[in-house]
């Protein structure tokens, strides 16, 4: 029977939740790296026991941890992230120029073909790659060196590169997203990048349709349709049918279209999930009711999923990398909250139950479906 392993990064350590395919009883292990901020953990698609984790601290900086046994044991690997060439400046919150400075790794994306090949999205925004299992990291400088770099600004969480999506069959195509610069795509393996933000409208920037400057919170793709992208922007849920060349809004009947997470059903590429958040100044669910919204039409028509989720006095947030899906049938959906709960649904969102409910604030959730 298949198994599911959920990798949870929190403000104070990492946790691993494991279950058989029924997804009813869960074993919880951790905390790993207790007391450290664990921004993201992710496993290699080709070697599920090869895991990478971003471990960081305001006191002690950044570490990258690697496991070869599914998270039972870990070893620190390379943690030197040095920008290539002249770093230049981006804009600070007040519009003044500020030098690029490494702060932390937000997202780790292992290659689809080689467990030693792995990408890292960092703050201040840049993408790095290691081809030796995380020992040596080199920047793909074409992204930061895109001519628009001096105009990028940090979002409230920092100027982070938080999304890396690898095309399933074209190794030269990679999507990234940056708060608050927008989405970018390379078609030459990372040498050159171009913004893919046409159709985004952001009232909070001087030019609402600017080429860059949009606060993209997360982007998701189904591997069977790599040209279709879904985006949760600061405000607005968006969809692209042409690999990001243009976007249309699909917020439809959502009660609020602010939010952070967005993800796609494992077997239904037009079924997507978001967790609406009240507003950019009130980062909690509308009316204190934690609700996942599902669209089976790729957006616009949304249904509220509430069964098993708190429907009163719930004022948590669900951060951008804190939702993931398994590939069992029925598809499992998982998300973590800043209140320390990790909720799971073994029926594609129809019903929910907490797997754990008292962890530190959850920063990221990734799921592995194991044989």
């Amino acid at each position, binding site marked *: 029977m298949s198994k599911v392993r959920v990798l949870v990064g929190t403000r104070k350590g990492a946790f691993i939740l494991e279950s058989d395919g029924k997804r009813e009883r869960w074993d919880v292990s951790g905390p790993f790296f207790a007391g450290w901020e664990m921004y993201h953990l992710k496993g290699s698609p080709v070697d599920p026991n090869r895991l990478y984790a971003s471990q960081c601290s305001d*006191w002690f*900086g950044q570490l990258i941890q690697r496991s070869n046994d599914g998270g039972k044991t870990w070893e620190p690997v390379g943690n030197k992230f040095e920008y290539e060439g002249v770093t230049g400046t981006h804009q600070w919150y007040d519009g003044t120029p500020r030098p690029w400075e490494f702060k932390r790794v937000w997202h780790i994306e292992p290659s689809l073909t080689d467990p030693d090949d792995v990408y890292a999205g960092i703050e201040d925004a840049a993408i790095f790659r290691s081809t030796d299992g995380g020992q040596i990291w080199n920047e793909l400088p074409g992204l930061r060196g895109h001519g628009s770099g001096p105009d990028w600004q940090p979002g409230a969480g920092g100027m982070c590169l938080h999304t890396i999506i690898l095309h399933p069959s074209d190794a030269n195509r990679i999507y990234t997203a940056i708060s608050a610069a927008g989405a970018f795509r390379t078609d030459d393996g990372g040498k050159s990048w171009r913004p893919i933000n046409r159709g985004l409208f952001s009232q909070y920037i001087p030019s609402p349709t600017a080429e860059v400057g949009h606060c993209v919170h997360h982007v998701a793709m189904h591997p069977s349709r790599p040209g279709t992208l879904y985006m949760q922007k600061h405000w607005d849920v968006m969809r692209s049918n042409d690999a990001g060349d243009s976007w249309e809004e699909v917020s439809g009947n959502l009660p609020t279209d602010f939010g952070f997470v967005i993800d796609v059903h494992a077997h239904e590429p037009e079924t997507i999930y978001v967790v609406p958040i009240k507003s950019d100044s009130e980062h909690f669910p509308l009316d204190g009711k934690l609700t996942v919204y599902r669209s089976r039409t790729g957006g616009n028509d949304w249904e509220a999923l509430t069964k098993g989720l708190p429907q009163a006095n719930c004022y948590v947030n669900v951060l951008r990398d804190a939702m993931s899906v398994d590939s069992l049938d029925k598809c499992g959906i998982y998300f973590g909250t800043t209140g320390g709960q990790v909720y799971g649904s073994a029926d594609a969102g129809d019903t929910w139950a907490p797997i754990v409910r008292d962890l530190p604030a959850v920063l990221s959730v990734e799921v592995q479906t194991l044989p």
Partner: protein
Amino acid sequence: MIRVVLPAHLRTLAHVDSEVELDIKGEVTLNSVLDALEAMYPMLLGTIRDQVTQQRRPFLRFFACEEDLSYQSPDAPLPDAVASGAEPFLVIGAIAGG
């Protein structure tokens, strides 16, 4: 023998329980102590000083003999009591809640 006391998180990371003891040939300075520490415990690379700039991480301070040594030249000699092992060299994390 130089004695170094690390913050708890770094002791865990380096798999040490208490003080770290280092043999240093030549002058005992901030740089020579940190070089020897990182050579013996490479998992500490980047956790005390930035790997690119070699600057002390801003939330850490260095103390010994009831003196704040954080701002002294990294190549200046440390106190004799540290060099002789009579007193430990302390790496202290800023106290902050949460």
